[in-house]
């Protein structure tokens, strides 16, 4: 761990003088429910990708690719916004995935 700095040596107001800091923060550790994707049902509308508050839906070539589990906090928004007739995302308790 880097040495902690004194109050004179840090930017004021808790400001971090660069962006993208949320990327370093592992919100995935908060998860108690895990989104599970069904490739066969998915229509690649990417509503989930638009709505995920943690940028945890990975899309490629305008298609659903997968979840970024380091950042997915398990909020379930993706499962909620996935069109009801499609229902390609199900939230499952993390306990089901433990060894």
């Amino acid at each position, binding site marked *: 761990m880097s040495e*902690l700095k*004194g109050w004179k040596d840090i930017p*004021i*107001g*808790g*400001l971090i003088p*660069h*962006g993208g800091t949320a990327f370093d923060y592992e919100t995935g550790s908060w998860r108690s429910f895990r989104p599970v994707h069904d490739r066969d049902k998915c229509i690649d509308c990417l509503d989930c990708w638009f709505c995920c508050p943690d940028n945890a839906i990975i899309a490629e070539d305008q298609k659903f690719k997968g979840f970024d589990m380091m950042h997915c906090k398990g909020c379930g928004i993706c499962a909620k916004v996935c069109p009801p007739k499609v229902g390609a995302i199900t939230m499952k308790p993390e306990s089901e995935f433990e060894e």
Partner: protein
Amino acid sequence: MARKSVSMTKLALTGNEAVAEAFRQVNPDVAAVYPITPQTELMHKFSEYVYDGKVETELIAVESEHSAMSAAVGAAAGGVRAITATSANGLALMWEVLYIASGLRLPIVMAVVNRALSGPLNIHCDHSDAMGARDSGWIQIYSENSQEAYDNALQAFRIAEHSGVLLPTMITMDGFIISHTTEVLEILDDAAAREFVGEYKPMYTLLNPEQPVTMGPLDLQDYYFEHKRQQVEGMYNAPAVIEQVAQEYAALTGRKYGFIEAYRMEDAETAVVVMGSAAGTTKDVVDTLRERGIKVGMVKLRVFRPFPHEQLAEALSHLKSVAVLDRCISFGAQGGPVYMETRSAMYGKEIPIYSYIYGLGGRDLIPSLVESAYNDLFEGTPDPKMRYLGLRE
């Protein structure tokens, strides 16, 4: 009086209109507004300027004071000059966001038109609203009349935005007594006012893609304490800036402002310490008593945060006794907030200091009440407990 270097116009304005006039001249980028008596008229007037195209301000009519302060925080974080105004329960509703504004070091300027907090419901003058926010990390400047409210409003931007300070600033005026009373005051011409206030150049902004920053991140046991210490430093740096700004303002207008105003204090034996419009009444009483040969003086506090403890202690140190008038009660404490600060400032000096509570909920402070406080100081030993001016037993 110093020589005035710019032309000024005399206008008859209420306190609310006077501050709206200052805000018009400043032409801030964003104003987040929500009405509450007795502040309503201030932002009403300002919104007329917006809709008449007299300012370029983006006016956001929000749904509560909590949102007003939040919108001001968002705007200031975006790197622009943001203002708002409120009173009483509106300020109370802003409470948590006040700390965010100061904690993130966003130099928002807010006019607080002092009013009693409910309940029971009361809309009249009382300092309890602003006093409740005294530990929120905001600079607080109080005004005796409309002229001072206008002058303080212009100076507030320079103080808040100074790179060594970067603290939000509230300028206050007494509800109704100042906010709704028409007085004649001198207004700078627009160009001079704008030049004095200058352009705001934020140190950081969320909207600069060349220099992305993160504001308001999680700040735990490792750094929160250090960031609070930095806020203290901002308060330590503020007095020199307040003084510098006041000097420049005096050179421009001839009107001099200090942290305190000492009135007939040179050979005074006792004095009253007050804030806000009560200073006008107290000066009259001092004059009356002086005519009778009684050596009394008055000290008006203009700046409450940072508290000018050195200046105040120096002004009072030659007295036999002091009465401090508070328009606010700190329930369960030994006296009002100004009293407690004054006592702290006078620590180690063998001068008795007494606490008087007056004017709660807009109760008039008539001259005979102030006189009775002076009489107490001269004639007997005032009750060491909190005393009340104008309260029925």
